[in-house]
């Protein structure tokens, strides 16, 4: 039994004929045997005894080869092995070859394709245009190995079919009456199956179907068809057929253009909105407010398109359009909503972003312009625990802004005199809303800083920036607020990093101090609509002090809020670094606080910066040679004597166990506004254990510790060997008895190498 793609000469490289090799001559056949019989009457040459034949780059081995001089036909019998130049090896008891040693018909024929897959057939014919037709065939990509008694073991999976045709034109392999066997047990029958020919790349053809079962949609069969239109574009058309619903058609297309590529995803069907048990939500009696009931069956669809182009090394442009008929459509049909948008506005869950942008970037400048609109997908159908009736909350899209446009630009120039760096920056943002205030702001400013390294290594970085803002806000109540202001800051950033190179351990100590003086009238009182009594801060929310924010001169988040007065931020970091079994390891501690004086409007209560002195900040970072990494920081509120923030990440990565964890706890003082339903304490993460062989067990979850609810969890058991990946998975979501999103699913995902993946989504 030759190893896959091993050629006669025992090498695994396909045979390459030397330029002057005599075998290039198409009329030349060379045989070696124990005996040759030249029967002149029948004009047949017969070679007998471990015959080894060679024709151009094909090698033939057999016990006997009859070569008819008149018809040129070659019949090889007995342990026949034919090795193609590509390394495909074919075994047969009887193989009829044309004179070019091209396999004609063969009896109980097995072929080991270069990709390692093995096909065996009772009988093979080869039509003159070179297409194989195999009868009574088995096909597997698994390594066939003999067990102790020398009997070949059942491969993990094998496809058995009555007839198989290799269609060169559409580059697919078609099966009639195919049975899929798993460990020798027939588990799936289909009268007709086709998959792209593994020896062809990018072949069009039916991808492997997906079969799944879910409460809402019942039994479903999903059959994707991949069509490689040309070298630049491809479309996957996927009909979803459901036992309890109308079928759905899904399309994904991708086109490569010379400066970038265009992605499209869409689907449509016709149905009434249904809940997680598949019951339509059009019965008014089930609702607390009857006219919330859904109307009869209507068109449901989604349409996403994203283009990202880079015509030159400086300029990029792109657009994203996302639309769906109703908020819960993708959840109901379990369609994958993760759509990568490459633009300036990142798409988030529960929100569709439609934007167009252009950006130019060089070594010392960046300019960008974007226009964007949004569709929020937060409407929910919730079963009330007391009445059992459905309450519907729908989001009001009219509140969402349309950003048309937001233009930003900055340009760095090195000041020849002192060698410092000056930054010219500008930002113009205009937002309009149907309900809510329209906001317009134009900003221009200058920022200058210079870093000096003084004699003993003290790093001194004085800085100063000034900015002019012009606001024009129209509120719903008709008031028109227009004003402008000039604000700025000046200060100095002092850092004095020390390093002590030890034999095993290097120590770094880095004390740092940042003194900032703010000036100019922030006119925060103008961000107030006297008629409605609302504040109109648009750009930026209340800040959230973390180690990265401590040393930011302007700690307000965004353009609108600005705090006057003086501020001194001090902190120090001590880090030890050493080699742990040849891998970089580090542990570092940081502590700091921000002191302020003469501050007018203080930041919000939950920001950690309210009052004159901020809360204490401490951080611990640990990296043990990449095996174990953990970053934790805490904020301590002196007045309430409580840790107002704990934030920690953990990742462990060893041979058998992979673990990632993320924990945070927010202990906000009374009066801070938080998002409805947001957890105050949450732990999330996952663990994957690979005990032995190809087996792996995994669990991931997100748990709201405040309300003791596990929002989402996935458990999976997987088995992987050289030709298969079998994964059993279970998923469950719990969003406070949300009628549509609270569903659980169980499925099998089976990926057969060279056949594509196959299994419940």
């Amino acid at each position: 039994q030759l190893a896959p793609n091993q050629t006669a000469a025992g090498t695994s490289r396909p045979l390459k004929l030397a330029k002057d090799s005599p075998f290039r001559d198409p009329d030349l056949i060379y045989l070696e045997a124990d005996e040759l019989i030249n029967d002149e009457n029948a004009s047949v040459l017969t070679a007998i005894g471990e015959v080894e034949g060679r024709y151009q780059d094909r090698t033939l081995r057999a016990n006997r080869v009859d070569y008819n001089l008149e018809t040129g036909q070659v019949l090889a019998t007995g342990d026949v092995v034919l090795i193609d130049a590509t390394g495909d090896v074919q075994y047969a008891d009887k193989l009829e070859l044309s004179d070019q040693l091209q396999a004609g018909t063969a009896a109980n024929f097995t072929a080991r394709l270069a990709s390692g897959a093995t096909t065996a057939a009772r009988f093979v014919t080869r039509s003159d245009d070179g297409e194989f037709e195999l009868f009574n065939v088995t096909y597997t990509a698994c390594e066939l190995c003999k067990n102790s008694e020398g009997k070949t073991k059942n491969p993990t999976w094998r496809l058995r079919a009555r007839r198989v045709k290799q269609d060169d034109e559409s580059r697919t392999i078609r099966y009639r009456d195919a049975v899929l066997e798993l460990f020798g047990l027939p588990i799936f029958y289909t009268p007709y199956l086709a998959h792209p020919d593994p020896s062809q790349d990018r072949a069009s053809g039916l991808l492997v179907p997906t079969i799944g079962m879910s409460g809402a949609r019942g039994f479903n069969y999903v059959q994707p068809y991949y069509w490689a239109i040309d070298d630049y574009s491809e479309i996957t058309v996927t009909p979803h057929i459901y036992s309890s619903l109308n079928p759905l058609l899904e399309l994904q297309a991708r086109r490569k253009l010379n400066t970038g590529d265009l992605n499209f995803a869409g689907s449509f069907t016709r149905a009434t909105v249904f809940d997680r048990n598949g019951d339509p939500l059009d019965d008014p009696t089930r609702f607390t407010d009857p006219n919330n009931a859904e109307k009869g069956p209507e068109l449901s669809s989604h349409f996403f398109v994203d283009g990202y182009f880079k015509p030159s090394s400086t300029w990029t442009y792109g657009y994203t359009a996302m639309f769906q008929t109703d908020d819960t459509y993708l959840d109901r049909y379990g369609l994958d909503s993760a759509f990568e948008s490459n633009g300036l506005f990142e798409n988030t869950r529960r929100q569709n972003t439609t934007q167009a942008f252009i950006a130019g970037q060089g070594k010392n400048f960046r300019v960008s312009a974007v226009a964007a609109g949004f569709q929020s997908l937060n409407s929910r159908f919730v079963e009330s625990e007391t009445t059992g009736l459905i309450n519907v909350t729908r989001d009001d899209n009219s509140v969402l802004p349309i950003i048309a446009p937001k233009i930003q630009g900055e340009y760095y120039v090195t000041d020849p005199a002192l060698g410092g760096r000056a930054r010219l920056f500008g930002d113009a943002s205009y937002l309009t809303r149907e309900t809510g205030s329209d906001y317009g702001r134009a900003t221009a400013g200058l920022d200058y800083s210079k870093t000096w390294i003084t004699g003993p290594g003290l790093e001194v970085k004085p800085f100063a920036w000034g900015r002019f803002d012009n606001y024009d806000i129209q509120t719903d109540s008709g008031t028109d607020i227009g004003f402008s202001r000039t604000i700025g800051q000046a200060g100095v950033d002092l850092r004095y990093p020390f390093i002590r190179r030890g034999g095993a351990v290097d120590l770094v100590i880095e004390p740092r101090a940042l003194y900032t003086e703010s000036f100019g009238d922030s006119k925060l009182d103008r961000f107030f609509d006297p008629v409605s009594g609302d504040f109109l801060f648009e750009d930026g929310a209340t800040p959230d002090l973390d180690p990265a924010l401590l040393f930011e001169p302007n700690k307000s988040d965004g353009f609108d809020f600005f705090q006057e007065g003086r501020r001194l931020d001090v902190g120090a970091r001590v880090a030890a670094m050493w080699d742990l079994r040849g891998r970089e390891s580090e542990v570092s501690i940081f502590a700091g606080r921000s002191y302020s004086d003469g501050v007018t409007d203080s930041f919000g209560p939950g920001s950690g910066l309210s009052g004159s002195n901020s809360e204490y900040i401490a951080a611990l970072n640990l990296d043990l040679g990449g095996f174990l990494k953990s970053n934790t920081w805490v904020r301590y509120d002196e007045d309430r004597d409580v840790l107002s923030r704990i934030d920690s990440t953990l990742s462990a990565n060893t041979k058998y166990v992979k673990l990632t964890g993320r924990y945070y706890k927010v202990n906000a003082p009374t009066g801070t506004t938080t998002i409805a339903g947001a957890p105050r304490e949450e732990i999330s993460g996952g663990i994957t254990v690979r005990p032995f062989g190809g087996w792996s067990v995994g669990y991931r979850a997100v748990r709201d510790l405040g309300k003791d609810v596990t929002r989402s969890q996935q458990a999976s058991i997987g088995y992987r060997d050289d030709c298969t990946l079998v994964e059993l998975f279970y998923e469950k979501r719990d969003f406070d008895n949300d009628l549509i999103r609270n569903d659980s699913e169980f499925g099998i995902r089976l990926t057969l190498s060279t056949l594509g993946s196959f299994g419940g989504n």
Partner: protein
Amino acid sequence: CAGFQPMHGTQSAQTAFSDMSVTVSDGKDEGDREAGYLIRQRLADRISAPEKPTYQLLIEPTAQRIGLGLTSGDFASRYDRLVSAKWTLRKSEDGAIVARGQTQSTATYSADRDPYRLQSTSNEATDRAARELADKLLTEVALELAELPTL
């Protein structure tokens, strides 16, 4: 060896920083590209490159946003802005790799229901994370350079 000495005072780090060119790749989408730009600007005032620098620092940036605080309405109420960079330091004359590494930094912020405020807070977080990453990266490069035989 001697006790603590100022890191900037170390002869090798100082000379290297004033003899190093920085190239930042674009990453796979606009977010990565913008993060790369911000990292470069923070490095610019610490690294200066003469005509023919001895060292070349290549940085491959990525910017990710990881949702946290999953609410009962199935959307994130907090985010981690993760900016990371794979860096490779080479000698110009023969392109030999002197050192390489991966640095990352995270800025956390609370989400806002309004998409404009959310994106402007995210952009601020990217700027903070890029600033912190640049500092970390410089410390790591300085440490690697300090181990090299002085030029």
